[in-house]
């Protein structure tokens, strides 16, 4: 694995080499150390490429056997002979739950972040920020279990209410029964990504230069106007980045969704009826039963998930990097 030969020939004297003197260098040790660290750094690239290569390699057998169109088929009968499966429903479900979770979580998360950075007194805000960071570390299986066994009931009530009052909207059109649904999965997901988005955007908000804030206040702005004109524009790239990271996390979430989605393979915007599935949850629930082709098919869907999250994260990072150029902060 570690036989990476992509080590660039060391430049004569990089700017970082400071005052090290060229004479009588213990060449061996220095070269060895440098080579080791370079190899370690390159491992990251190797792993990313290896993920793609191995997933493609293991996915090909199922994709060639597949009797249906992988991109448009909704159902997942990968263990049949001939296998028929596609990612239409699972990929759609992945994106749908993630987007709804974001829509629910982001406004609340930004509110909490502002509350912690600009509203709450410091003595309260610091421990609360600490707790939010802790919540980001709670394993997803805990949220999943809670969502399935306890949160399920209030969401049932909410579904009933939404249907009775907003039933003319197709997304709330299902007449029930209300069990595991896209709504339940999305809300649980929203609760899970809330701490992540909060703690990232809080950090960004706290970095707002004091001059900008004070200037706004000195011009007679109310606190909210100060936040609107100084804090939010300054933090916008950071907010976008934290939202994208939250999206990345939501897209890849497995266990909580495996426990809270209804597992119905259909492209449908119905949020409250039994339904919903996602690529990751589909892999987790079907893996044990899968035969050889079935496994390979699941790996193929994992490849799609990898591609989606890779794109989302690359966009997020590109935004953060552009910002770093003129602010020099860390994100």
């Amino acid at each position, binding site marked *: 694995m570690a036989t990476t030969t992509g080590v660039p020939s060391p430049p004569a004297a990089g700017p970082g080499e400071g005052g090290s003197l060229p004479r009588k260098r213990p060449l061996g040790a220095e070269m060895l150390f440098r080579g080791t660290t370079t190899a370690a*750094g390159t491992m990251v690239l190797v792993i*990313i490429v290896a993920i793609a290569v191995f997933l493609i390699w293991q996915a090909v057998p199922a994709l060639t056997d597949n009797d249906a169109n992988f991109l448009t088929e909704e159902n997942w009968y990968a263990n049949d002979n001939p296998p028929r499966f596609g990612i239409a429903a699972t990929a759609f479900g992945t994106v749908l739950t993630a987007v709804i979770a974001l829509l629910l979580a982001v406004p609340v998360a930004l509110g909490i972040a502002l509350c912690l950075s600009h509203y709450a007194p410091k003595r309260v805000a610091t421990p609360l920020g600490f707790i939010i960071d802790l919540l980001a570390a709670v394993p997803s299986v805990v949220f999943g279990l809670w969502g399935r066994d306890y949160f399920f009931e209030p969401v049932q009530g909410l579904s009933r209410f939404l249907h009775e009052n907003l039933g003319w909207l197709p997304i709330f059109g299902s007449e029930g029964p209300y069990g595991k649904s896209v709504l339940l999965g999305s809300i649980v997901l929203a609760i899970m990504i809330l701490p992540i988005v909060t703690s990232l955007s809080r950090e960004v908000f706290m970095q707002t230069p004091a001059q900008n804030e004070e200037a706004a206040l000195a011009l007679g702005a109310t606190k909210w106007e100060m936040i609107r004109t100084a804090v939010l524009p300054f933090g916008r790239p950071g907010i976008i980045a934290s939202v994208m990271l939250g999206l990345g996390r939501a897209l890849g979430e497995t266990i909580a969704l495996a426990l809270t989605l209804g597992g119905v393979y259909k492209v449908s915007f119905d949020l409250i009826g039994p339904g919903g599935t996602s690529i990751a949850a589909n892999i987790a629930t079907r893996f044990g039963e899968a035969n050889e082709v079935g496994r390979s098919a699941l790996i193929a869907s994992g490849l799609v998930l990898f591609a989606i999250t890779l794109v989302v994260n690359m966009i997020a990072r590109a935004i953060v990097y552009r910002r770093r150029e003129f602010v020099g902060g860390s994100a």
Partner: protein
Amino acid sequence: MTAQVDTERPVVIASGDQLKAKRLPTWAPVAVAAAAIVLAAGLVMGTGWGGPVLTGVVAAVLFIVGLGVAGGVVEGRRAGSNRVATTLIYSAFLLALAPLLSVAFVLVTKGFERLDGNFLGTSMKNISAFDANGGAYHAIIGTLEQAGIATLITVPLGIAGAIYIVEYGRGFLANAIRFFVDVMTGIPSIVAGLFILSFWVFVVTPIFNDGRPGYSGFAAALALSVLMLPTVVRSTEEMLRLVPGALREGAYALGIPKWKTIMKIVLPTAGPGIVTGCMLAVARAAGETAPVLLVAGGNPAINFSPFSDNQSSLSLYVFEQAGVASQYAPARAWAAALTLVVIVLTLTVLAKLLARRNKLAR
């Protein structure tokens, strides 16, 4: 922006008593709240529309609107919207607190039902759906071993990678590595699991294993390493950048070679911060379920060897017990969840406390 502010407040230049802007009295929010609750109760209960939950929601909406209008009338439009924004921001906080408190409450009350010596000291071997006992000892062993091995793999690799980025890396390769470290942070855990499955379990282990795929705790540790590596690199990198350049230059001036400077001066200085980053990474990895499910497979019995046969882990145990149709399973699931959360949060809290004592970070 300033021009707009000016046109909106033409009165400011007026006489002395007008310099003091009119404010709502301090009791006003309380009064608005009371009015909102009464109105909401009348509206919701009176029409038989819904229950107390809906009343609360309607009351909250009425409160926000009412306060905004009252503030707007008395204090001016801008002050009114300021009040609305403030209320919204605080209510976002309360809104988020409710489910999180519920999770914590359920976790603690349900978790303590079965969390005893028997639970921590026995496995699920020979436990059928009709047995009340059974424990998570095998799962705790699995979690500790998998997270431990993942740490042993990742920490040296991650620190070395960060050293390359900060101290040696120049040009395209270093930039690419930095970029992809960040991108790698977002790789879903299930993809990491599938990667180790298709690389280690299906391709590498059959070579040593008479052609049979070898599910093992070690494979799970590898998958966790993939997840931990970017976090470790990233946090180490940030800590290394905080080490003052003067320290390095001082060492170079004494003729100490670069590698020795890094090992003896830069790393120890950044030490506590690096440890913090590593602990946070371990904490996150220890809670992952999906990779363990895919490549370690789970095992009801105690298996101390991470290299042969299936292993379980706490998170996988929770997931498994969540699906078992035994009346005793939920208590076991919650007790294991509590154990897991205690382990993960202990690591996190220690890491954060360590970070606070760290003089390098602000």
